[in-house]
C-alpha cells in the first residue's frame, strides 16, 4: 500500500514535566498561546485491509470491461504523488455501450415496484456501511482528504443518502400533488473530485429510487471509490446496467452529456463546464440540473457567538482543504468586532494540523491535484499582487505531494480577484461591513448564489438576513451542514435544480 508522506514536524517533547519545569517563552513568531509541548504522534489509519486492483476496467452492464481504446491512466495519491492504480480511459463508443446497457436495464428497473427498488437501495446502503472503513481509506488515498472527514462525514453521509432515498422508492405516490410521476429514462451524471463517493450517492440514490438508470462519470483524479461502489453494486446483485460507471477525462464527460440516449443530465462541477452543458442541451427538452461553483459570503455580526462563529468560519473554508463548492470563502465581519474576531481566527488557524491525510489528527490534508494547486497558488499570488495582506500560520509542509497552508487575506477589496473568483482551496478573503444592509449588499455582490452563512444572536435578524441573502442554502449560526432530507442547490450561476429532500426527488420524475 502507499507509504506515508514525510513527517511534518518534530516538536520538542518532555515526558516528565514537573511542577517547576520551565515554561516556554511567550509568543514565538506572533503566535499567541503557543502550543508545542504536547504534540500528538502520528496516528495513522491502517491501510492493511485495503486491496486495490492494479488496473480497473469500465463498469458496464454489471461487469468490468476493457475500454475500447485499451488505454488506462494512472490515478495517484496527491499526498505522495505515488500511483494507486490504473484506470480505464473511456471513449465515445464506451459511452454508447454504457448508455445502451442503461437503456436496456431501464425497461425492467422502471417496472419494478417501488418496494423492490427500495430493497436494492437499502442493500447498497448497508453494504456501504459495512465497507465504510475501506471506502474511507481509499477516499483519503485517492483524493487527499483527511481520514477524519472521509470516515466521519463522506462515507456515513453517502450511506445516509442511500437510506433516505431507499425510503422514498415505495412512497412516490404520496410525495407529490401532481401524482406519482414517471421515471425519465437514462440519466447521465458527471461528478467532481471533491466528495467523490458522496457526490456519487447524491446522484445515484434519487435516480435509482425514482426508477431511472444511470451512467456516471467520476472525476478523472478520484475514480477509485466509484469503482469500489461498482463492486458494491455487484455484491448487492443490482440488476446489470442499472448503474454504469465510465472513467476518463473531460472528453468522456463531454461525450456522455451530449449523448442522444439520455433523458436527463445531472452535473456537479465548475460553472464554466456547466454553461457548456446547458448550451449543448439548449432546446433539446432534456432535463438538466446543475450544481456549480460558489463564492459564499459568511456574515458575522457583532452580537454573534464569537468563538463558535470562528469555528464556523474555519469549518466553512478549511473543510476538505476548501475544495467545497459552498465554501464560505468571503468572510464579512462587522467592523466593530473585526479585530477581536480576527485575533481569535488567527489563533484558531494556527492550531490546524496540515499533513498526512491518513493521520487521524490531520485537519487539513493534501490538495487534490497539481492542477488545482497551481490554480490556488496563482490566485493567491494575484491576491498578494492586488495588495491584500496574507496570513498563513507557520506550518511545515511535506516535500512531496500537493500542499497549501490555510490562508487568510485581510485588506481585501470587493473588486479583488480573490473576492470574486472561486479559488476552491483553503483561502479566505476577509472584508468588513458596517450595517446589516451593507452586509446584504456585499454578500449578494457576486454572480454565484450557492450558499451563505450568517451569525448573530438576534432571532429576527437571522430571519431578515436569510430572506435577503440570494443563496440556495443559508446556514444561520452554523455552516457546512448537509443532510439528504435537506434540499441543496444554487441561485444564479451556481446552477439550478436541487439535490436532497422531496424537491430533489422531483428532479428525477416527469409529471403530467
Amino acid at each position, binding site marked *: 500500500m502507499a507509504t506515508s508522506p514525510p513527517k511534518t514536524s518534530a516538536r520538542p517533547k*518532555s515526558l516528565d*514535566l*514537573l*511542577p517547576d519545569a520551565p515554561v516556554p517563552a511567550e509568543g514565538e513568531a506572533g503566535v499567541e498561546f503557543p*502550543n508545542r*509541548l504536547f504534540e500528538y504522534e502520528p496516528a495513522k489509519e491502517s491501510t492493511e485491509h485495503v486491496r486495490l486492483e492494479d488496473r480497473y476496467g469500465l463498469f458496464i452492464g454489471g461487469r468490468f470491461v476493457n475500454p475500447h481504446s485499451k488505454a488506462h491512466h494512472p490515478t495517484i495519491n496527491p499526498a505522495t504523488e505515488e500511483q494507486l492504480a490504473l484506470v480505464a480511459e473511456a471513449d465515445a463508443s464506451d459511452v454508447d455501450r454504457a448508455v445502451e446497457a442503461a437503456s436496456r436495464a431501464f425497461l425492467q428497473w422502471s417496472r419494478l415496484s417501488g418496494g423492490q427498488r427500495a430493497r436494492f437501495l437499502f442493500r447498497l446502503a448497508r453494504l456501504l456501511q459495512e465497507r465504510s472503513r475501506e471506502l474511507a481509506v481509499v477516499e483519503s488515498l485517492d483524493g487527499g482528504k483527511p481520514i477524519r472527514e472521509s470516515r466521519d462525514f463522506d462515507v456515513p453521509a453517502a450511506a445516509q443518502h442511500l437510506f433516505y432515498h431507499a425510503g422514498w422508492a415505495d412512497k412516490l405516490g404520496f410525495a407529490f400533488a401532481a401524482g406519482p410521476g414517471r421515471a425519465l429514462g437514462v440519466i447521465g451524471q458527471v461528478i467532481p473530485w471533491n466528495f467523490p463517493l458522496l457526490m456519487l450517492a447524491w446522484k445515484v440514490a434519487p435516480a435509482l429510487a425514482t426508477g431511472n438508470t444511470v451512467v456516471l462519470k467520476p472525476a478523472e483524479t478520484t475514480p477509485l471509490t466509484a469503482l469500489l461502489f461498482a463492486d458494491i453494486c455487484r455484491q448487492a446483485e443490482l440488476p446489470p446496467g442499472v448503474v454504469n460507471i465510465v472513467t476518463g477525462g473531460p472528453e468522456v464527460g463531454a461525450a456522455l452529456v451530449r449523448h442522444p440516449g439520455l433523458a436527463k443530465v445531472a452535473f456537479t462541477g465548475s460553472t464554466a463546464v456547466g454553461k457548456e452543458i446547458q448550451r449543448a442541451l439548449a432546446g433539446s427538452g432534456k432535463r438538466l440540473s446543475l450544481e456549480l461553483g460558489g463564492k459564499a459570503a459568511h456574515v458575522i455580526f457583532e452580537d454573534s457567538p*464569537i468563538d463558535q462563529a470562528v469555528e*464556523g468560519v474555519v469549518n466553512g473554508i478549511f473543510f476538505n482543504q476548501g475544495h467545497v463548492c459552498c465554501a464560505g470563502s468571503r468572510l464579512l465581519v462587522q467592523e466593530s*468586532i473585526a479585530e477581536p474576531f480576527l485575533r481569535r481566527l488567527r489563533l484558531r488557524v494556527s492550531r490546524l494540523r496540515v499533513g498526512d491525510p491518513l493521520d487521524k489528527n490531520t485537519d487539513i490534508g493534501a490538495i487534490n491535484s497539481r492542477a488545482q494547486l497551481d490554480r490556488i497558488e496563482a490566485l493567491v499570488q494575484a491576491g498578494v499582487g492586488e495588495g491584500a495582506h496574507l496570513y498563513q500560520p507557520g506550518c511545515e509542509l511535506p516535500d512531496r505531494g500537493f500542499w497549501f497552508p490555510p490562508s487568510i487575506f485581510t485588506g481585501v477589496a470587493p473588486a479583488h480577484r480573490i473576492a470574486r473568483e472561486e479559488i476552491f482551496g483553503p483561502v479566505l478573503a476577509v472584508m468588513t461591513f458596517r450595517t446589516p444592509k451593507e452586509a446584504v449588499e456585499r454578500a449578494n455582490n457576486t454572480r454565484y448564489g450557492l450558499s451563505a452563512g450568517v451569525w448573530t444572536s438576534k432571532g429576527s435578524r437571522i430571519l431578515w438576513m436569510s430572506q435577503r441573502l440570494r443563496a440556495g442554502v443559508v446556514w444561520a449560526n*452554523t455552516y457546512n451542514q448537509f443532510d439528504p432530507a435537506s434540499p441543496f442547490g444554487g441561485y444564479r450561476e451556481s446552477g439550478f435544480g436541487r439535490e436532497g429532500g422531496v424537491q430533489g426527488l422531483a428532479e428525477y420524475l416527469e409529471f403530467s
Partner: protein
Amino acid sequence: MDGWVHNRDQMRNSAAASTLSATPDGAVSLDQVAVEARARLFSSRSVKRGSKLFACNLIITCTDLTTLEGSDTRGRVEVLCAKAMRPVPDDATIPAVAAVCVYPSQAATARRCLQGSPVVVASVATGFPSGQVPAEVKIAEAGEAARFAEEIDMVMDRGAFLEGRHLKVQQEIAGVKEAIGDRHLKVILETGELGGLDQVRRASWLAMEAGADFIKTSTGKIQPAATLPVAVVMLEAIRDFAWATGREIGFKPAGGIRSAKQAVAYLVAVNEILGDRWLRPQRFRIGASSLLNDVLMQIYKERRGGYQSPQDFSEA
C-alpha cells in the same frame, strides 16, 4: 437585558473594572450546538504512544486527588495522602499528584501526612457543596481551612447568581479571597446548576474578576458535573480574560472524570485552546477520586505493551 446591565454595573463597581475592553467579556453569547461540535473534535483526537505517556504523566502531576464524603476519616485521608505522594509505591518514575482535596475538618490530617512532600493540601469551603450557609460562616470556614490548606476550593453562590445578584456573588468571592490571604483560590461554579453555557461564561468571568486563581467546573455532587462543552466555554473565557487583563487563570474540571481517555480529552482542549503555559499544575488541575488508577494502567500498558489489571494498583 437586565442581566447585562447588572453585569456592567458590577464591573464598574468591582476592583477589576479595568478589565472592560473591546474584547468580548462575560456577557458574550454562545451557541450550544457549535460548542458541542467543537468539544467532539477534542475528544476525537487520537493520542497514542509517546503522546499518551506524556499526557498521562501530566495528568497525574495535575491531579487533585479527592475525597469528599461524609464518611471520610483520618484513616481514609492518610491512605489517600500516601497514594498522592507515591501513586505506585515501588515505582519512583510515577510522579506525585498536585494536591489532596478534602473537607476542612480533614485538612489538618492531610497537612500532617503530606509534610515535606511537594503535594499540597486543598480544602473545599464556603458550605460545600450547596453554598447555602450565611456569608459570615463561609468566610469563617474558609479562614479556618486556610490554616492547613494551601488551596481553597470555594463554591460560588449559585442562588445569588440565578437571582441575578452578580455583585453579591463577586463580593463573596472577594471576601473569601481576603480571608485566605496568599492561599490559592479555586472557585467552583457548579456549572450543572447554572442553566446553560451563556451562564457558564458569565459565571467564569465574574469569578475571575472577583479574584479567583482557578475556575473549577463542579463539586462532583451534581449531575452533570464536568463536561467537555463546559470546559471549552471556560477555557475560552480564561483566554479572553488573559487578553483583557494579562492575568492567567487556571482551569479545573472536576466530577465524573474516571478514565484516562476522558482526562486526555480535557488536556487536549487545554492544549489547543490555551497551549503550553497552561500545561502545568499551576494552571491546570483535574479533580478526581477514581481517575488515577486508570491513568496508571494506561501508562503501564504503553510501557509493557499489554493490558493491565485494576487489582495490581492500590485503592485510594
